[in-house]
């Protein structure tokens, strides 16, 4: 090993382990497979679940005119936004926000009565 290192020293500064010629650029794991739009398995699916949940709640809130569903839908959209990855497209998040806000607005337009809170319903 001694011989080896001496030989190396004459060609390259071997005590400095940096090699500018060996730099490989960063390839984002998402860029590697552009065909599949699905995220890498194992990555956080919360954002997607919350997105779907938000859409379901806002649909239920709109159809059944259940006010608390609409509010929960807004909450789900916020959670989904907070958990989204930076390179996720914003269109989906924006659309879920718009959907939940429209659910809230529509349910209150149809019935301006304040929402009955659970502890009030019991009394």
């Amino acid at each position, binding site marked *: *090993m*001694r011989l080896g*290192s001496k030989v190396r*020293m*004459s060609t390259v*500064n*071997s*005590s*400095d*382990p*940096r*090699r*500018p010629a*060996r*730099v*490989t*650029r*960063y*390839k*984002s794991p998402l*860029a590697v497979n552009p065909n599949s739009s699905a995220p890498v*398995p*194992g990555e*956080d699916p*919360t954002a997607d679940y919350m997105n779907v949940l938000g859409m379901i709640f806002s649909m239920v809130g709109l159809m059944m005119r259940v006010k608390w569903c609409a509010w929960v839908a807004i909450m789900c959209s*916020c*959670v989904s936004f*907070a*958990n*989204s*990855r*930076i*390179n996720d497209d914003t269109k989906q998040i924006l659309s879920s926000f718009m959907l939940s806000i429209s659910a809230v607005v529509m349910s209150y337009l149809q019935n301006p009565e*304040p929402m009955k*809170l659970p*502890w*009030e319903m019991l009394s």
Partner: protein
Amino acid sequence: MADARLKTLLVLLVLSLYVRASKYQAETEDNDFADFEEFDDDFERPYQGESPADGGGAAEPERAADVGRAAAAADREQQHDGDDDDDALVEVPVHRSTNWDKFYVEMLMIAGDDGKAEPGSGAGLLKESENMYTLWCSGRVCCEGMLVQLKFLKRQDLVSVISTMMKAASDQVEIRVTMNAEEMDTFVFCLANKKSAARLAKEMTDISTYCPERKSAERFGLPAHFSVLSEIHEAAAAVLDARVVAVVNKYPELVEYIHVSDQYSGPKQQLDDQAPVELPKVKPTLAFCFNLPGRGRLQPADVETVRPLMQLVLYMVDRMKRCKLGREGRLKAEKNRLRVQEIFLKQTHQSRAEKAQAKREEKRRLEKERILEEEDPEKQRRLEEKNEKREAKRRAQMRQMKVKAL
């Protein structure tokens, strides 16, 4: 009625403030990580001292670089040619090596590449999501590059905060070093605490294929809550040398797993309806996962505690070159890999046979088409003859194969 409504509003406000406050704390913690960052970024710091003579008698003393390079507030590109002759093989006494504070390392050419900007423009940490940051470093001997992922606990929304409060978890740093193929010998090894070991054995393709059994790490001098999953025992002993064992023993709760593999291909992909068409691409890799101290409540001082672990990473990167298997070890590894390939080939035999058959049919059809399209009757006749001959030969071959099979 109005009272109750006011009360609810107040509660909601307080909760949202709490969430915001803890997010702010997380952000300042992220900024504290900038210190940790500079550890990679700081090229001006000199390369001092190196690992001392190994505790085991077999290992040779390793080189120590000249401290005089401390003067170099020099450019990264500058070649230190003059110092080469002065470098001697110096044995650094063991007690000096434990003074980790004096060990500054300039190890990598670029740190913080995002793949798009000019290298060296220093994009730094890349934000992948609110709780995950990535740093890609490259440009070093032995390895293609190193991906450092900071996986923090989720503090960005109320649901996540509540769910993290219920689980005992910590922020983690995951480091994946992709090695050059010739630098690493062929083996698969993993040291992990019991829970991670179970999870990795299930999730990771290479561990589940090559390391069927889990052994306790006590035989290597490590705490009992660690287990070792290893393809070849000799390799495990080679990787877990005195230095590594010392570091792991010093920070047992911080080391989550250490995974060394030449067949690393990531976690198992979700199975589609059909069997996989080809073996996943493998790269020789070292993967480390460290918990950050504090169990979710990081302090600025904790960053310094983690520094020895980073140095462990780099030490192991350098050491992989010297971790060579003996003859039996290598034979065993070869055998294992061939076996895995055979199994895979057998599994896909059906689909490959079908594909070959389809291809043959296609070729035959094309030939027939060509014959029909051929206007010149002479040429047509000749092509037909050729085709006939080929078919006759094929039929004879099939008959021979059937006889052999019998």
